[in-house]
Each structure stands twice: as structure tokens, then as C-alpha cells.
């Protein structure tokens, strides 16, 4: 791939946004630590940090979008964004891999070892789900073929509608693009709503032993990613309405689509390893 054009690679002028972002994370972390330690100022400091972070995101992405519209990302820069997004998604894969690893560890090694230690925990038998030998809580797991199966269907469908929207974009059919995106967003919101409902009606919490902990950590971080993906799709919808994307040049759309499919795949693994098995 020979990507050097007559243009020099676009090196942006000095920017205030990285510094703003660092101040945002410093404030956010300080506020969170204060909140966790029951300090009254905690929530306010956190809110301030979140506000600065939002300010930074609007400013920084605004910058990127206007540079993109000005045609600064036409050559080699585009390949950089593609590589960058791929490696970012890889880091996300490893993040979920860590939690899946924890799940596999406790199910196959941790809990059986506790059951082997009969002198420590007499009468404890290795089973899944379990809240552990000390809590004595009965866990009623979620029935996989209820809401979770429906949610699987919803996310898989959303992958189809998103691809359909992409086809619309590539063929220059603006209405197909917008309709497809709107449907994908609606399905995303539906998924989040159903997941929320499931959390409400469940009779165990993340405090209920290792099952509750792994269940909520995995599904919680996944749900957080779906929310993030939905927000990203909404931004893409607004940018589509503003006519930012061309049939041959629309990497922002593709990046969000990659992200959405990644979240989709994580859900399939969750469905198998958290809900069915």
C-alpha cells in the first residue's frame, strides 16, 4: 500500500483539548475517590470532572469533524484512523477477555477448589451458579431463553439494519442510510431498556457472591458499551442528517459500525457463557 501522496501528512496545530481531557480525568478520579470514601464533596467534584470531559469531547471531536470536512484526512491519515480504531477495539477485546478469564477461572478452578476444602467449608458442593460457601444465598439465575434470547435477536437484527444503512450510504441512498441508522438506534435503546428491566426484576445483586459479581461485571460493562455505542450511532445519525458522509468517504460511520459489531460479538459470548451455560 503506497500511501504517500503529494500532500504532507496532516500534523494538527497545537491543541488545548488533550490538556482539558487530562484535567477532566484528574477531577473525575479525585471526585470518585472522595465519593467512595463518603466525602460530601465527592459527587460535585465528579460532576465537575464529567462536565469538563464532555466539554473536551465536544471540542476535540468538533475539531476532528471540521478537519475531516476540510479534507485534511484524505490520504494516509485515513489509513491511520483505520489502524487506530482496529487496535482500540483489540484493547477492548482484551478488557472483556480479562473478565471472561475471571469467569472461567472461578467456574473451573476457584469454586471446585473451595468444594475440595471440606475442612474449611464443610458441606459446600461445587455448583454453578453459586454465591459461595459463606453467604448461603440461593441464586436464581436468569432464564436464558427469555429476555436474554430476545436481546440476542435484537442485537443481531441491529447488526443487519446497520449494514443495510451502510449499503444505503455506499449507494448514495440517503433515506436508506437514515432509516437504517434510526432502526439500529431504536434496537439499541430497546436492548438497553430490556436489560434494565431484567436488572430490576432479578432477585440477586452484585453483592451475591461470585455469581452475582461476574454476572453484573460482564453484563454491566457490556451494557455500558451498548449505551456508548448507541450514543455514537446517534452522533452518526446527526452527522448523516447534516450530510457529512460521502459514498466513498465515511470512516466515522465505519468506525462506529465496527464498534457496534464488536459489542454484538461480546454479547453472543455473554449469552453463551453467562446465560446458557
Amino acid at each position, binding site marked *: 500500500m503506497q500511501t504517500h501522496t*503529494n500532500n504532507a501528512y496532516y500534523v494538527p496545530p497545537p491543541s488545548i483539548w488533550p490538556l482539558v481531557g487530562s484535567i477532566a480525568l484528574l477531577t473525575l*478520579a479525585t471526585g470518585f475517590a472522595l465519593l467512595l470514601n463518603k466525602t460530601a464533596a465527592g459527587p460535585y467534584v465528579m460532576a465537575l470532572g464529567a462536565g469538563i470531559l464532555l466539554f473536551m469531547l465536544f471540542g476535540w471531536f468538533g475539531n476532528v469533524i471540521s478537519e475531516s470536512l476540510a479534507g485534511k484526512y484524505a490520504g494516509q491519515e485515513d489509513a491511520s484512523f483505520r489502524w487506530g480504531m482496529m487496535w482500540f477495539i483489540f484493547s477492548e477485546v482484551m478488557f472483556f477477555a480479562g473478565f471472561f478469564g475471571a469467569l472461567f477461572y472461578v467456574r473451573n478452578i476457584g469454586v471446585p477448589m473451595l468444594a475440595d476444602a471440606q475442612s474449611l467449608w464443610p458441606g459446600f458442593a461445587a455448583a454453578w451458579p453459586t454465591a459461595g460457601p459463606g453467604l448461603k444465598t440461593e441464586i436464581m439465575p436468569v432464564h436464558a431463553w427469555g429476555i436474554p434470547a430476545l436481546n440476542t435477536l435484537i442485537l443481531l437484527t441491529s447488526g443487519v439494519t446497520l449494514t443495510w444503512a451502510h449499503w444505503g450510504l455506499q449507494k448514495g441512498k440517503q433515506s436508506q442510510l437514515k432509516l437504517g441508522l434510526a432502526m439500529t438506534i431504536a434496537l439499541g435503546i430497546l436492548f438497553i431498556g430490556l436489560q434494565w428491566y431484567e436488572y430490576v426484576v432479578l432477585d440477586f445483586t452484585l453483592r451475591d457472591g461470585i455469581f452475582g459479581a461476574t454476572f453484573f461485571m460482564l453484563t454491566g460493562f457490556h451494557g455500558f458499551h451498548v449505551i456508548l455505542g448507541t450514543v455514537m450511532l446517534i452522533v452518526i445519525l446527526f452527522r448523516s442528517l447534516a450530510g457529512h458522509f460521502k459514498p466513498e468517504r465515511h470512516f466515522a460511520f465505519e468506525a462506529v459500525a465496527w464498534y457496534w459489531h464488536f459489542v454484538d460479538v461480546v454479547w453472543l459470548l455473554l449469552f453463551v457463557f453467562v446465560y446458557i451455560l
Partner: protein
Amino acid sequence: MNTTTVNDTAGHHDHDHDHAPAGLMRWLTSTNHKDIGTLYLWFSLFMFFFAGALAMLIRAELFQPGLQYVQPAVFNQLTTMHGLIMIFGAIMPSLVGFANWQVPLMIGAPDMAFPRLNNWSFWLLPAAGTLLIATFFVPGGAISGGWTMYPPLYMQGGIAYDISILAVHILGVSSIMGAINIIVTILNMRAPGMTLMKMPLFVWTWLITAFLLVAVMPVLACAITMLLTDRNFGTHFFDAAGGGDPVMFQHVFWFFGHPEVYIMILPAFGIVSTILPTFARKPLFGYVSMVYAVASIAFLSFIVWAHHMFTTGMPLGGQLFFMYTTMLIAIPTGIKVFNWVATLWRGSISFETPMLFSLAFVILFTIGGFSGLVLALVPVDIQLQDTYYVVAHFHYVLFSGSAMAIMAGVYYWLPKWTGHMYDEKLGKLHFWLTAIAFNITFFPMHFLGLAGMPRRIPDYALQFADFNAIASVGGLLLGASQLLFLYIVVKCARGGAPAGDQPWEGADTLEWTLSSPPPYHSFVTPPLVK
């Protein structure tokens, strides 16, 4: 790529006149890889002295048996924060500083692929560093259960424990973004003709290191997120009563932690592999095997993690597996050491300061590698777990490995970065003081460990007194010698004999084709590599 951009050129040349912006905003808002590299290097030097000062307190306390200067609780904070800050604040940022300065110059790129993101990766470090240093002043003091943050000890501390988790999260964000930036720069921004197998070895080591960072920093994030929820939200990941397992933390942590060890040494390999050929005036011996050796070490780093945990009650099969995989690492490492020595073979060698540091690296790192092999043996490791032998081992690979390679690199590239030669006499003095003091400090620790002295202990039995006194004298000398390093660097930055474009006649990488210091924006038009 498409060709609709011919008319865009007019917009490109109005902002990058070749002088640096002035004042504080130059550093706060920089999108220039050289400026950001400089920031990384200064930040890491500051943290090196901060964490080094903690080490001086440790050695002062251990100079003789009994409690002298600090209470045991404070002593534990010192050892913990010394480790955490040296790793995340000194070694890693300095290597990223080298990547920032050198990778674009060595591959003929105009800058990093994402210059703004690059600046964010840096400015997150002072944020996290502030949080970490602040923990010394919160109620209960800093974290004190060791830099590895093992539960259940980690469950018991105060607000410093939460702050440190969040600080490490921020460091992780910084590392992941920095690593993505480096990977994309190397994969996408090489000058025409610079194929992968023509890249300088330093660039190769950073490509593989950045891959390791992207792969394992998220796993560290998992581990410390579980700590955070166990501490604050009632989960039972590491609590047996709830079906969890504190040993699970060690598995997740060391799945990050062992690749992390190589994250800190592979770029050091790259620096040494650049310097040795220059001063031996011969090309690097076995370049291709060097690349494959680095890649093999990176691959193996994912399947050796439990050798840090031989005493946790692992099944025999697990112990054997991790022992053998660990010993396998000796093969690619041996290839590297062989190649370094073969590079020197019949070379016309001169002994400038960077070369002295690099030669010391080869010898002393190899000692650290051998003691690592000793520790890989399960029966031996069970005896030596958490003794000073381990402390000796990892200081041989981290100080005389990473840190001395970093110093070698600083001396090697300072003339390029500043345009001035450093003071060669003082540089050599710094080298000999460092190398001798280092060995006085850490060699006796092997004996202490073999005799059974546990690490992370402020007081000890009388029979350990002599070696501890020697180590403390060496340690304080080692620390004081680094003030000389600071003086030499500052002196060189402020002035000195002009370096010329190519102060080292044997150097053949692209940065030497530029002026010293290089123009603020270099390789705006990529060079053609034959």
C-alpha cells in the same frame, strides 16, 4: 488511496513554519513528537528521582538492624510506592519518550500518527502522578501492600487505595493510547522503501512492545476494577466466603505483569542493539534473528505468568508447565546476547559513554537473566520466593537492564536532541560510579536472599547486618551518582561543543541525516530509503 486532494496543498503549509511556538503553551498544547518526547523524558527523570528518594529512605532504614528512621507501616509505603512509581512513572514513560523522539525520526515520518492523542497520552501522566504522590498525604498514608496490590491486604487500606486504583487506570489509558499511536505510526508512516525488515531494531522492539501494551494494559484494568468493586461495591471476586479467590487476582494481575516486564526491557534491547553496532563499527549481527527473538519473547511472555505464583498451591502440572515455558525464554534471550557479543567480535570498538553503558548492560542484564533462570526452577523458587534474591534479580534486569540502557540511549541521542555534545569526562565518571555502586548495592542481595532474608521488611536478624550495610552504602552512592547524571543532562541541554549532524561515525539510521538538533518539523517530505 484516492487522488481528489491535489488542490488541498495550499492549506497545508501555512502553519508549520520551522520554529517552535514560544512559552508555556508550547508544552501544554504541543502536537510535536519531539516536544512531547522531551516532556516524557523530563517527567520520567523527575519521577526517577522521586522514587529514587524513596529507595534512599529504604536503604537508610536498612543500614543497620532495628528501627531507625521510619515506622514499619511507612517502610511498607516506601517499598510499594518505590516500585509502582519506578515502573509506571520512570521506566515506562522514559521509554515512551524515546519512542516519541526516535520512532518518527528513524522511519522517516513527519510526526506520530495521532499528534493530539500523543499529547493526551503524556498529559495524563502528571495527572496520575499527582494522584499517586498525593496518597502520601491522605489519612492512612499511601498504599503499602506491595506494588502488585494483592488482595486481601489491598482490601484493608484507606482512601489511598482507591486513589491509587484510579491513578493506575489513568496510567493505563495513557499507555494504551500511546501504544496505539506507536503501532499506527510504525505500520502506516514509514518512508517509501522502509520495509518492515529494514526498520532499525529499536523500531521493531517498540512495535512489539506497543502490541504487548495494547494486549495487557486492559487486563490490568480488569484486575484493579475488580479490586475497586470488591472494596466498595460488595462484590466477592477475591473473597472465598462468596466463592471468589484471592489467588485469582494474582493470575489476572500477572497475566498483565509478566508481559509488563518485557514492556520495560524490549525497548531497552532496541536501544542497546542500536548503540553496540555504532561503536563496534559493524552492522548488527543477526538482525533477522533479533527480530524473531523479540517476537518470541513477546509471545512467551503470555504463557509464563504463574511463575510468579509457585507458592500459591498450584497443581504440579501447572508448576511444571510454567517452569518449562519460563526456561524457554532463555532461548530467544540467549540469541540476543549471542548476537550482541557477535556484533562486538572483531569490531573496531571505542568506549564512549553510551557504549560503556551498553556493554555493562549486556553483562549485567545477563546476570539478571541467569538469576531469573534460577528462579524459574520450582523447587528453588519455593525457597527463594519473597527473599532478597528476587529483589537482586529484578534490579539486575530493571536497573542494570532497563535503566542503564535508558541512560545509554540518553547519552547516545543527547547530541542529536540538543545539538551539543555532553561532557564525555563526566559521562564516563557517571558510568563508572553507577556501574560500581549498582553492583555494591545489589550483588550482596543475592547472598542475603540465599541466606533467607525476606523482602519488604524494615528490620532483620543480626546475621544479615554486614551485607545490608554494604548494600546501603552502595545504594546511597548510586543515588548520589544520579545527581551527576542530572547535571550532565542539564549542562548538555544548555550548551556545549556543537555536535554536528553525525557525532557518531558508525551510526547509520535516518535521524543522523538531519541537523542537530533536528528541525522542529522533520521529514515533512519523506526520505527515500534504498
